[in-house]
């Protein structure tokens, strides 16, 4: 078995031969540019002047007082340009694609945050862009569909399978297989074949690195716990990575439990998944005993995915990170809670992390601290949350 791109037994490069040469070309390009000072300087220029980094670290005083335990801090990835952490990875990969001479970007998207970020980078760098999105998600996130189109991208609806993120990835992979010579597949999470899980994590690890620095400046010590939501797992890997080597920092991922992990309607891959090989990687997946991938469900289109990045599978298996389940109801309640308590409307994805923090912080000491990775802002989710609560608003 190949050793490259493995996290324990997870990871690998399980893709059709047609794209294997492209995967290896990307691997070589990434190995080259990741160490290249000019590339890093250019990318960090975009991070600072275009994306608005470093993102702020906010001390949530009212939430801390209300929960009565650890001091709660919020890493404001929602304040990045385009409204989520997705821009960190997209700027890195789009710049890499440009250096590689690729003219066309394709991407999959669930909630639309990654698609919007990719469409933005394509506009910035003058590249053609096509985003694949499940038709079910296009209905849930029509605002983001229009944003992508405004940015000049073509949004292609995917009607196969469950019409959600998984199927959008299938279709993006099919397009990549067809147009591999001129197309760069800009994967939005820490998933897919090597080098994507490593590369996306590297472009996102700035979240944790900034958090470390900001916490040291603010409190003089590392946080005791960091919490992030997990779909494919990119904002969580970005937050976790710099703290993996710090045994005192507890790492917690919040998975989407939908209507509950004991129903068929959830997307809790770590809790309920089994080992499998799919979408280019060996990891954990929600699947039946025949290896057919299960339809999954979450109120959050961004967490509605039957797999998880291979590094998370490894962090789980080695016990380094903990993963908790958050239901739709808990996420919506946290969405409302953060809005009222701190005046911050979180993305429904990020609300899963807020919900986890509401459970964890009260069990911690007042001298301790907890950081929530607030991966995105919630404007896109207002309509759906209103509907969930039975409120009719006109779009």
């Amino acid at each position, binding site marked *: 078995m190949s050793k490259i791109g493995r996290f324990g037994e997870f990871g690998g490069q399980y893709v059709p031969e047609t794209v294997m040469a492209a995967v290896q070309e990307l691997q070589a390009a990434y190995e080259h540019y990741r160490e290249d000072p000019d590339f890093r300087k250019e990318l960090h220029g975009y991070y600072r002047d275009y994306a608005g980094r470093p993102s702020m670290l906010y001390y949530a005083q009212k939430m801390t007082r209300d929960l009565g335990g650890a001091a709660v801090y919020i890493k404001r990835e929602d304040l990045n340009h385009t409204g989520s952490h997705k821009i960190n990875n997209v700027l890195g990969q789009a710049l890499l694609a440009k250096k590689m001479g690729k003219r066309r970007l394709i991407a999959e998207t669930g909630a639309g945050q990654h698609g919007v970020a990719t469409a933005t980078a394509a506009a910035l760098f003058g590249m053609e862009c096509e985003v694949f999105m499940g038709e079910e998600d296009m209905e849930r996130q029509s605002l983001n569909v229009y944003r992508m189109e405004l940015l000049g991208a073509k949004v292609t609806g995917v009607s*196969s399978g469950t019409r959600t993120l998984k199927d959008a990835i299938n279709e993006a992979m099919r397009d990549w297989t067809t147009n591999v010579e001129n197309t760069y597949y800009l994967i939005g999470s820490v998933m897919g074949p090597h080098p994507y899980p490593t590369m996306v994590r590297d472009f996102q690890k700035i979240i944790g690195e900034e958090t470390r620095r900001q916490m040291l400046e603010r409190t003089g010590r590392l946080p005791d716990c960091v919490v992030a939501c997990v779909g494919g797992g990119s904002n969580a890997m970005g937050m976790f990575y710099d703290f993996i080597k710090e045994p005192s920092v507890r790492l917690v991922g919040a998975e989407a439990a939908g209507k509950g992990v004991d129903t068929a309607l959830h997307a809790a891959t770590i809790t309920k998944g089994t080992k499998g*090989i799919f979408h280019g990687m060996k990891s954990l997946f929600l699947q039946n005993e*025949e*290896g057919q991938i299960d339809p999954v469900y979450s109120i959050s289109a961004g967490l509605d995915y039957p797999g998880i990045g291979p590094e998370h599978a490894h962090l789980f298996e080695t016990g380094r990170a903990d993963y908790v389940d958050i239901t739709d109801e808990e996420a919506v309640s946290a969405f409302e809670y953060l809005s009222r308590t701190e005046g911050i409307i979180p993305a429904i994805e990020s609300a899963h992390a807020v919900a986890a923090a509401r459970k964890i912080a009260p069990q911690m000491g007042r001298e301790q601290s907890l950081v929530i990775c607030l991966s995105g802002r919630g404007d896109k989710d207002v309509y759906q949350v209103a509907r969930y609560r039975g409120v009719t608003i006109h779009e």
Partner: protein
Amino acid sequence: MNRIDETFAQLKKEGRKALITFVTAGDPNLEVTEEAVLAMDRAGADLIELGVPFSDPLAEGPVIQEASQRALDAGTTQVAVFDLVRRLRRQTQKPLLLMLYLNSIYRFGKERFFSLCEQSGVDGVIVPDMPYEEKDEIEGVADAHGVYSIRLIAPTSHERAATIAKGAKGFLYCVSSTGVTGMRSSFSTDFDEFFRQIKPYASIPCAVGFGISGPQQARDMQRYCDGVIVGSAIVKVIAEKKEAAAGPVYDFVRSLREGMDG
């Protein structure tokens, strides 16, 4: 000796090229698949591939995607596919191959999977999402049970072709063009150049597949290699004729055979 080797040796002796045909197992049900395979056998197919349905067949175009979904909706399981192979083995000695995604083998259990291949009479497997670099995932177990794991080479493989060809068994599955399975009206691949990159390293036969949709294309393609693979065009006949597909499948495969031999 594996039936795949025997078949290609016999064809070579006769100066003919292999016709390799594909159907999705369980589309619209396993009884029709059984009839269709036997019809293809009688019509002159030399090797037969059975597609094992998968929820997310990402190397397939719409025709086989839909067939896969119909087969799953009909309740087709891996064990039922092995039962089908057992029944077919009593009626034909042509090589039978399973085309399936790696997760289907991995989740089923590699040892159990290949031991059932051996017991039921499967001669080879084609796994489109397992590149050369990950071949050790199954090749050792497959070998131990006398089942060939067929390797694929694509127009984008270039210098990879030499490495892939070395140590390959059965035949090399040469993918005609970039993209997913499905009928194509023409090809942009330079086949002279493509096979120039493969032939010097290939000690086993080469067969070309993906997109070949009719007798004329089969005839045109066979001069480059040792076999021609036709899938989606047959699956489309089954999609249209459903339970009554066996006759039309026979006629279509017969036309391919005549196109190649005529």
